[in-house]
């Protein structure tokens, strides 16, 4: 497949909690690069620093040191260079959660259009885009249904639609197939791969699900906060 622009560039990123004897190094000088169109899995035992790295790339945890470049923009270099990180996330990053995290009081369509409303789209345009995505992900017929009445697979597809709604180029997923059976898990990964190519986006996924390892372009292994093999 064609590999495009460098979308995620993590250089020498470290993260530690506490000081002195209580200091815990969650990440130690990690370097990662991900390009448009790539679907990358991040593997490692519990406490290896996977979620910390995902949170740093998602601009929700402050790195202790290093440099972070997202979609060509240096956002961290010893300090955050962007004041409004929420806006940065809204514009550049889509999140897919293990438990889909759809807002229970909104319908499937409203969950998707909410991101667009926040980004400043008009209600008509955001609704149309939400419907387009839900139809594309074959859950359009469930647009007016609330998450509690969706199956696990449907809810995860709605969550994917929400993550893709504002056309972000970086998609971060935390165990996106953990709640799905193997057939649905592979379908979801195939779908993500297809969308990554179509939207010229990259996907970084934290997973333990060996059934879907063959769906990734690359596997990143983390152990004790260090990259072991890429």
């Amino acid at each position: 497949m064609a590999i495009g622009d460098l979308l995620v560039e993590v250089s020498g990123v470290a993260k530690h909690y506490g000081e002195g004897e209580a200091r815990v190094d969650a990440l130690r000088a990690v370097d990662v690069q991900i390009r448009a169109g790539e679907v990358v899995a991040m593997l490692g035992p519990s406490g290896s620093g996977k979620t910390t790295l995902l949170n740093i790339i998602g601009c929700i945890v402050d790195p202790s040191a290093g440099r972070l470049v997202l979609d060509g923009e240096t956002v961290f270099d010893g300090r955050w260079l962007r004041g409004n990180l929420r806006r940065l996330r809204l514009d550049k990053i889509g999140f897919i959660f293990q438990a889909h995290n759809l807002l229970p009081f909104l319908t499937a369509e409203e969950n998707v259009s909410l991101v667009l409303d926040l980004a400043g789209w008009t209600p008509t345009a955001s609704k149309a885009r939400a419907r387009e995505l839900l139809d594309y992900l074959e859950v359009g017929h469930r647009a007016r249904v609330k998450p509690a009445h969706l199956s696990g697979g449907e809810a995860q597809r709605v969550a994917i639609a929400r993550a893709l709604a504002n056309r972000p180029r970086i998609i971060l997923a935390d165990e996106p197939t953990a709640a799905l059976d193997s057939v649905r898990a592979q379908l979801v990964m195939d779908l993500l791969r297809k969308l990554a190519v179509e939207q010229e986006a990259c996907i970084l996924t934290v997973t333990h699900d060996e059934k879907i390892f063959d769906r990734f372009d690359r596997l990143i292994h983390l152990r004790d906060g260090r990259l072991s093999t890429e």
Partner: protein
Amino acid sequence: MTLALKDIRHSLFRFVLTCFGLGLLMTVVLAMIGIYNGLVSDALAAVKAPRADLWIVEANTQGPFAEASALPAATRDAVARLPGIAEAGAITYQTIEARHGAQTLRLYVIGYERSHPGGPPTLIDGRGLGRSHYELVADRKSGLAVGDTIRLGRNRFSVVGLTENAMNSGGDPAVFMTLSDAMALQGELDPAAERVRAARGAAAPDTSTVAAVIARIEPDADVTRVAATIRQWKHLGALTQAQQEELLLASVVDRARRQIGLFLGILLSVSAVVIALIIYTMTMEKLKQIATLKLIGAPDRTILGLIVQQALILGASGWAIGLSLILLVKDNFPRRVVLEPTNALVLFGIIILVCILASGLGIRAALKVDPATALGG
């Protein structure tokens, strides 16, 4: 529709139940305000009823409501002759208990002179006193009806008219009768007691005194100057209508008023704590959703809007339910519940302010939520 409204609609039953609970609390708050107003209004009813400008009482007393006052009945003639006085009337007050059917009535007896000030302020049924004896006009809250008869002291009185909003500061309904009947009622003893008194050779009680003389002044007269003139008689005191009302509130109902005021303050504080707890709990239940909102890029104002709007809807609904309930049940209270539109509006303002302040706890919790908690792990 805003996120707040959608969230409310999602768990509508629970929200309505919460509003109803708050509404019941607001009902109690409004009831206390109404009882407080009722207390003041009832206390002033007897003072306002004669529509007097001046109250002439026994010197060095604060009668006839705050203290006992006794004047010779002839004082009325002396006062009526003063320059600036348009008309004057002698008046007596006493509280008695009487049987009426199966009930024991507690009545506030007001004796006044027909064709002089001091009679019932309005008539809502029947007529005023037409005869010199054994007729009375009763407040409708007494339960008496036109045509009823009731035994007071040694005599049976006919109810010839009904008035309203005439009572003493304790809420006892008033009955108006002629001054002579009231003075007789005041002095008359039970027949057995009368026989004992006669056997002892004791003097008969003095029935020639009245509690006060009320006066209306000429339109061009200065009430304070007329009062000062009356005070020159060393055995008389004079209070203007405003002074009498002030005195009554300061001495007779002040303690009860402060008690209710304090209770009202406690109730409002409890309401504030309850509202704060409800909003805080509602926010804590949504922390994961708030973290998700933050993670997908929602600005703080979206999250604040969610919390504050729900708090305001909760407060406004609780207030509306409370107001509706109190308007439905207020006439069933043993004491008069008087609610003015301004009371309801001021309470609405207080509740809205409390809701905004109470949202602070929830907002603080929401702003502290780490968006990373949405991802877990």
